[in-house]
C-alpha cells in the first residue's frame, strides 16, 4: 500500500522534508518505523528515540501498536507544545 508520511518540527528538519510517499507492507506503526529507520541515516536519527516521538494515523493520535490497515496518512512529531 501507499502511505503519505508527514513530519513536523524537529523531525521534519532532521529528515529534511515535510512529507514523503512510502510504499509499504507494514501492518503496524512499529513496522513502518522499522522500515523508515532502515532507509537512511536521517530517518534513523529522527526516529531513534521513540520516547520523544508522537504519531498520528489518519489524523488521530495513535501508538506503535496501531494497525495501518486502510490507513492513508501517518504523521510523526514531537510532543505537542501549543497553547
Amino acid at each position, binding site marked *: 500500500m501507499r502511505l503519505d508520511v*508527514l513530519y*513536523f*518540527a524537529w523531525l521534519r528538519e532532521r529528515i529534511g522534508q515535510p512529507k514523503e510517499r512510502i510504499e509499504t507492507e507494514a501492518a503496524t506503526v512499529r513496522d513502518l518505523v522499522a522500515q523508515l529507520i532502515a532507509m537512511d541515516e536521517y530517518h534513523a536519527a529522527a526516529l531513534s528515540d521513540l520516547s520523544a516521538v508522537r504519531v498520528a494515523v489518519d489524523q488521530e493520535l495513535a501508538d506503535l501498536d496501531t494497525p495501518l490497515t486502510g490507513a492513508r496518512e501517518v504523521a510523526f*512529531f*514531537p*510532543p*505537542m*507544545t501549543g*497553547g
Partner: protein
Amino acid sequence: MSARVQTEAFDLGQEMQGFGSGSGAVVTFSGLVRDEGGRLVALELEHYPGMTESLMERYGREAAERFQLDDWRIIHRHGRLTVGEPIMMVATAARHRDAAFQAAEYLMDWLKSRAPFWKREIGVDGPGEWVSAREADEDALTRWDR
C-alpha cells in the same frame, strides 16, 4: 461555538462582543509570547493542518457537552509571533462560574498537550530550539480522567 486556526492577530475585546450574552458567566484565557528575560524576540509556531482544526472542533464540542456550555470559542495562531502578541485564546460561557472555569481549564489542558502545535524560539541571534513539552502539561490532562 467556533474554532479557528489563523496567522493573523485577534482582539480579545472584539471576539467577546456579544459572546455569552444570555449566560451568567464568561471565562477567557489568553496565552501571550513571553520574552523570557529578554532572550526571545518571537516564537515560530508550526501546526498540522487539517488535524488541528478537526481536533479543536471536536474538543470544543466535547467541552460544551461535558460542562453544559452556552457558548465556546477557540482561536490558535501559527507562524511567526513576536513578543507580547497573543498566541491563542479560549472563551467559555455557562450559567454558573464553576462550569465556565472548568471548561476553560479543560480546553487549555487539552490544547497544551494534545493539539498538534509546535513552538520554536526565535532569539536575538535567530532561530533557536524547539520548545520542549512540560511534564506538568501531561499531568494536567490526566486530572480530567475521572
